[in-house]
């Protein structure tokens, strides 16, 4: 029997569909999304997604701001992994300005970005578990996100919206406490992750709720321009870190996990495996750092790298450079650049057109959440309402990135 098209007799009072507004502020939608669903019992017949409830005109604001003042905007795209957005933006500007950063900066960036990826995947996977009723696992792994925030705090002073980078490197070097915290994390997190997996991977209820649900074929995923873990769960091994390596990712030894069926369970497994890979990447970066000269945390680009505040207060040259940078007196070249990084949800691209000044003529964010979510209403058709909820968790749509 085809569940989508129930057969009713004439004048049957049940021959009506129920319209349900799932959202805009529904606890299960994890953000401000509205889906107007037509329900036949518990089954979704059709749906329309409405977005834009927290649209903040980032692209328009970016046209009026110098490069440094765009960093806080990128923080607020995917706020679950804001350092990746930050680094992606600064790397775009570095590409525009032809700046090469020291190796040590690359490794430090990899540490921060992989921590951010873990933090992002922790949220997604624990929330999938939470939506199937497994609150324990949610609380259990979530504390490691807190540990990651403590590392950020040590590096830059902020926790969620980090503003962690600078053009050419970092604002300051990682201190010993930060390295100690990273080492502690590397020691403790794998134990917890293993336990998390042992609680869920073979859990009958979890598998029943996720395996074979919301299957997506590679052709569908590619047609909808999916990237990231969602695309990889369908079996396509596309990862920007491998395809177009940045930050010396090509020197590292890691694998791109792929799924086979593209269902929710595969997405969960792919993200879990990516967390293992990220742990390995951080460990490798920590090892490589030992061979790099200490204290190097930015490239020597005084025209674009903001000098330290104490220098600005005490050193005339630093004050002049600070003034020139903040007032936008040194022009950037007239150029057009696209740079992509592997964000938590997929390819995060920055398309920057510069007309010779210090504010972009046009800046477009290619936001993976926005592009991935376009398939949600279509793929919910024929699905049970309860499955559509878990499907949304498994897509890891971040409202800030969706609406920008």
């Amino acid at each position: 029997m085809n569940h989508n098209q129930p057969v009713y007799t004439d004048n049957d009072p049940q021959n009506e569909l129920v319209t349900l507004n799932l959202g805009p502020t529904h606890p299960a939608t994890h953000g401000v999304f509205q889906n107007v669903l037509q329900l036949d019992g518990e089954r979704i017949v059709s749906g329309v997604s409405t977005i834009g409830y927290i649209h903040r005109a980032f692209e328009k604001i970016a046209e009026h701001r110098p490069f440094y003042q765009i960093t806080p905007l990128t923080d607020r795209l995917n706020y679950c992994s804001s350092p990746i957005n930050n680094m992606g933006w600064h790397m775009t500007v570095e590409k525009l300005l032809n700046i090469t950063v020291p190796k040590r900066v690359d490794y430090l960036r990899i540490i921060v970005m992989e921590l951010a990826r873990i933090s992002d995947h922790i949220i997604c996977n624990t929330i999938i578990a939470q939506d199937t009723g497994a609150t324990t696992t949610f609380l259990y792994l979530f504390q490691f996100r807190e540990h990651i925030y403590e590392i950020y705090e040590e590096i830059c002073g902020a926790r969620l919206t980090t503003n962690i980078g600078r053009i050419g490197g970092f604002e300051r070097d990682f201190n010993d406490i930060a390295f100690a915290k990273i080492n502690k994390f590397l020691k403790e997190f794998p134990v917890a992750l293993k336990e998390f997996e042992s609680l869920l991977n073979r859990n009958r209820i979890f598998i029943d709720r996720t395996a074979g649900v919301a299957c997506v074929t590679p052709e569908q995923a590619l047609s909808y321009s999916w990237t990231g873990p969602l695309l990889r769960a369908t079996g396509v091994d596309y990862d920007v870190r491998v395809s177009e390596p940045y930050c010396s990712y090509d020197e590292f030894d890691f694998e791109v996990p792929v799924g086979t069926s593209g269902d929710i369970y595969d997405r969960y497994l792919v993200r879990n495996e990516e967390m293992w890979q990220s742990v390995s990447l951080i460990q490798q970066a920590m090892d490589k750092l030992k061979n790099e000269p200490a204290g190097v945390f930015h490239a020597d680009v005084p025209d674009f790298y903001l000098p330290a505040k104490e220098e600005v207060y005490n050193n005339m040259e630093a004050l002049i450079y600070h003034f020139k940078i903040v007032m936008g007196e040194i022009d950037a070249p007239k150029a057009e650049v696209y740079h992509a990084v592997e964000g938590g949800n997929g390819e995060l691209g920055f398309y920057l057109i510069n007309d010779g000044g210090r504010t972009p003529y046009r800046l477009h964010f290619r936001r993976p959440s926005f592009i991935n979510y376009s398939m949600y209403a279509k793929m919910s058709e024929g699905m049970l309402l309860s499955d559509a909820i878990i499907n949304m968790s498994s897509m890891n749509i971040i409202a800030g990135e969706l609406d920008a």
Partner: protein
Amino acid sequence: MAEVNNSSVIQLLADRFGAKVSGVNEPYGLLTVETTKDVIIDVLTFLKETEGTGFTFLTDITAVHYPETKHIAVVYHLHNMVNKIRIRVKVFIHEHTPAIPTATVLWNGANWMERETYDFFGVKFEGHPDLRRILNMDELNVHPMLKQYPLEDPNRVDKKDEYFGR
């Protein structure tokens, strides 16, 4: 299979479309070409389905407004994931008649990208199945990314310099 690179793609495009594909450039290694709106779907189809090009993945669609020349550039980023090369295709359309055929006939993902471009720039994608605003409210009567619209409402009085002694 022959190697696919920027020069081979340029050659294939020149053979197939001649002068209709122009402005070939490679800023930062990313192949960029310009074409016209009457052949854009043919160009995209050619890039997607021809063996020597293989740009099967649509990365992005967006637009840029150039008020000095009275043009809006619709920009497509395509990706050949196998050979790891990208191409940027631009179409300059006049700002008073901003219309271009839709790419949803080739990629489902183009749907929301084109809605966003319509919302921000007012570019009408002809044949789009559901061309509505996506991020801004339906009642908005401007397309806010066009350069003639300033960032803030000019009628606001609380930010006028005279109130601050400037």
